[in-house]
């Protein structure tokens, strides 16, 4: 797909989709019979601090998932760093959900300095609005950056920006990283970017 095709598609109106039913990711929290105690205590601290703004995705052994809206993700990340002793982000993954019209960005946060947290990974997920005809950097697909909280997200967020078109507001260096400089197609990890012949 060349850039010409893109400019024509930008002009056409984005079709309004009725939001499809929520996927299983946002299933309401059913309390499993027994939750690991240590992980439960961490998630309880977050719930206690932020209340309704956060939603606990799951609490498994060594893994806690927190779903946050994009307004609160910065505050929650700061609390995770300062209050819970997590100190680095291992991975930032973007996942495209066209049926929700949303793009999920997942931070896997770990800790080196606190040895009791060495096994733990805190999964912080947030969602950005998805545009059908993306103009990376200039559309509504935006999230606040976490680089000022966790320095280690710097290159990961750049990667998510080019691969999914999620612009991180406040990131100091929002340039291309892996893709060629003249890449003018859709962000490749979106679901509507199809590999040729597949």
């Amino acid at each position: 797909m060349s850039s010409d095709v893109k400019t024509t598609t930008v002009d056409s109106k984005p079709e309004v989709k009725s939001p499809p039913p929520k996927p299983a990711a946002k299933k309401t929290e059913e309390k499993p019979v027994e939750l690991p105690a240590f992980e439960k205590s961490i998630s309880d601290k977050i719930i206690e601090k932020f209340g309704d703004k956060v939603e606990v995705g799951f609490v498994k052994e060594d893994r806690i998932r927190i779903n946050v809206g994009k307004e609160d993700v910065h505050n929650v990340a700061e609390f995770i760093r300062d209050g819970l002793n997590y100190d680095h982000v291992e991975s930032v993954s973007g996942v495209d959900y066209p049926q929700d019209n949303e793009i999920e960005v997942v931070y896997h946060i770990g800790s080196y300095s606190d040895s009791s947290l060495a096994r733990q990974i805190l999964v912080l997920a947030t969602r950005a609005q998805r545009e059908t005809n993306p103009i990376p950097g200039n559309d509504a697909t935006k999230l606040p950056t976490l680089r000022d909280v966790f320095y280690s997200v710097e290159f990961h967020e750049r990667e998510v920006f080019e691969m999914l078109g999620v612009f991180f507001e406040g990131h100091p260096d929002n340039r291309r990283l892996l893709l060629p400089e003249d890449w003018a197609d859709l962000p490749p990890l979106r679901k509507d970017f199809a590999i040729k012949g597949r």
Partner: protein
Amino acid sequence: MTNELPPGLALRKVDERIMTLNVGPQHPGSGHMRIIVQIDGDYIVACDPDPGYVHRGEEKMAEYRNYILNIPHLERPVIHDSCNVLYPYVLGVEELLGIEVPERAKYVRVIASELNRCIYIMYWLAIYGIFLGHSTMFMWPAGDRELLIDLMEKMTGARVTHAHFVPGGVRNDLPPNFEDVCLRHVNYFEKRIKEYAAVFYDNPILIARTRDTGVLSRQDAIRFGTTGSVLRASGVDYDLRKKEPYDVYDELDVHTNVMKEGDSYARSRIPWLDMLESCNIIRQALQKMPKSGSVRVKLKPNPKGKGFDTVYKRVESGRGSLGCYIVSDGKPEPYRVKLSVPSFRNLVALPNLLRGEKLGNMPSVYWSLNYWPVEADR
């Protein structure tokens, strides 16, 4: 069309004194990546790593193949460390599908992954040697690596890309008499790598060159989220084999090598110590391994997850903690596979380490980050 250049093509106006050097991607001292270095005389004032020259879209490809077909291509990012780079994916798929792995297969995996770690580090060490202009240290590891490659060939049938780990165990059982051959090779290998100290690690010129260059403090190492040998060279005792043991690492005695200095020399010495440690682990595993038994759980032809599920698994690879995030939506193909690779994580430290260094230190600092360009690009 606007006249604006795409973001990466725009040239930045810089000072007259400052020279911009494109180190790579086709440069003997960069690997398959570009480092844009700005130098003032002999000092580096800014450095902008530009990976992506060998980006192959592994993550996108993984969304189009089912869980088993993904195995051969997901190990391609680091073919010298192919068992370890596949390990978190296999562990993740096992958790998604709810498979319990036989005991013997776990030991075989540990042996294969430790052998692979040594193979990778030998290759890395060879390049570190030639980056420092030490041609003997290029040839020796490249030759001694063959010992372990022969072992892996006996074990898996392939010399480099093994595709040996599958969800549910390993592909094949060990060949007969493998334990003895393995023990013999590993003992000789250990004796051989101990000799490297005399010609390389204790070499006064090497020490003078790499000591106190590219120092990464403990706080910075944590803040940048570095991992593996870079982290351990900065004094953080963190090894997933010890901290979050997967498979049978909790039954083995794993020693973590930590150095305090955080300079290039420490970062280059830690992998060498890791190889010695790997030899110990292999010997232990060979001793404790069940002598017979199944090595693989039969799977259904086209395995599916149970519905929407996510899993994040990580292992300690030759370069550091390697994570794999799999999102499944109940189809035979994964919805999303994300490899969180150590090379990419260590790359964040590079601009900070190179700033203010001399140009002559660039190869040693860059390669001491235990960086593998192909892995970072995926």
